[in-house]
């Protein structure tokens, strides 16, 4: 009974006299390796040169601000619920008077933490977010010596007001 069409008959044929000398095979091997010697290497010198990634690459997260520089996040917790790796935790707080220029909604995230060692970069938080507050950027979370330093708080996640991160291409993907 034939189970698969990929099976191959084992060949146990005697080697010829020339094959038994091994030398032609050895020189053939040397020829193959020396051709690789002259070939361009595939290495990318990482910290100096970065590999091109797709514009919708799912890397480090960013917490977006709106046009007036107010944080979008309203701490609804949908991202945390959607997260299959349970990497997101947050504490909500009520917006006080005089803080309208800081937070867009009446409720905001006082603490927002993503454990980068748990995160699987699936992008479900981005899809779950009703306020367009969280996006995954093409940046990489940088290496660190300490586990506790991989829990990214708001200091690392919220985009700086003077260095806005463009996620317009991502938005196009989600609305279409």
């Amino acid at each position: 009974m034939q189970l698969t069409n990929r099976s191959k008959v084992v060949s146990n044929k005697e080697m010829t006299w020339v094959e038994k000398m091994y030398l032609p095979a050895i020189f053939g091997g040397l020829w193959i390796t020396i051709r690789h010697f002259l070939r361009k290497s595939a290495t990318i010198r990482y910290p100096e040169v970065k590999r091109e990634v797709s514009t919708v690459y799912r890397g480090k997260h960013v917490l977006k601000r709106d046009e007036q520089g107010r944080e979008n996040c309203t701490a609804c917790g949908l991202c945390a619920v959607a997260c299959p790796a349970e990497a997101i935790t947050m504490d909500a707080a009520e917006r006080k008077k005089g803080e309208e220029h800081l937070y867009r909604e009446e409720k905001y995230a006082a603490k927002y933490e993503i454990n980068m060692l748990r995160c699987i970069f699936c992008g479900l938080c981005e899809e779950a977010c009703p306020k367009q507050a969280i996006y995954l950027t093409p940046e990489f979370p940088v290496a660190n010596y300490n586990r506790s330093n991989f829990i990214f708080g708001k200091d690392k996640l919220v985009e700086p007001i003077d260095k806005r991160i463009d996620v317009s291409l991502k938005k196009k993907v989600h609305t279409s």
Partner: protein
Amino acid sequence: MDLALLLDKTILILILFGVTLFIAMYSTYAERKVAAFLQDRIGPDRAGPFGILQPLADGVKMFMKEEIIPNTADKWLFIIGPGIAMCTALMTSAVIPWGKNITIGGHEIVLQVADINIGILYVFGVVSLGVYGIMIGGWASNNKFSLLGAIRASSQMISYELAMGMALIAILMSTGSLSIRDIVEGQHGWHWNVLYQPLSCLIFIVCAFAECNRTPFDLPECESELVGGYHTEYSSMKLGFYLFAEYTNMFISSAIISSLYFGGYNFPGMDAFSGNTLALLGTAVFFAKIFFFIFFFMWIRWTLPRFRYDQLMRLGWQILIPLAIFNILATGTWMTFKGYLGF
């Protein structure tokens, strides 16, 4: 012995010592670079421009590492093992002629530490001593893997030394001398031994690979079976010494292969030069040959997989030794009858 000669030899020995260590040191760097290039990578490039300072960084690392001597090890033998390996590796360079004589102000300098009339036998003797470093290290570790590696190393060296010696006899028959200087002088211009004795050359090179414990004959330190082989228990600079001895051996083997079969400091068109120019050019050519063979050692290493142990023994005893004996017979027959045939 006059003072000038003593001074000559002392300076030559010191230079040789330095050059050997320097080349062994940069062989580790070259090995990593060659491996990388053969595998479409770029290799070490962080320490200095193109990673030129990598061997220094490795050396510092080796010295800084914690030194561990196992409780069950034979302490003294464990310590002198790497020393013997290093010492014997450095001794061989004494009989290699590095170039023609240089004349400075009427004083003739011989670029060879000792031109003894049994140069080849000396090389063989010292190389056989080299196995003691590995044997003692592996035995003193009191570890099964180390012992297996040491046993493999010694039996391998003994087996391949026979074929190596037999292959050489053909050369000795045609040259009529055991002195390496005479053998090199006999290969004037392009009359290299490899053209007259290709089979002997092939056997010698294969055996040289086995003597140096290089792939495809690196069973004594075969990681997939024996962890690290004879240096499993070694750490810090003692391990460094073993690795260093291996690269020194590789350099010396390359030098011996080049001088026995590839003309040493002879090169085609050498009659156009004379005096010191010829001597310096010859030395440069000799080193170019040595570097090519070091590269060849590495090239083979990153091309061929390792032999199985029974294949290794079969190749040594059943193929190389009969071939070498056949080569002796063929050479002898040719030397006897070439007079009658009118050559």
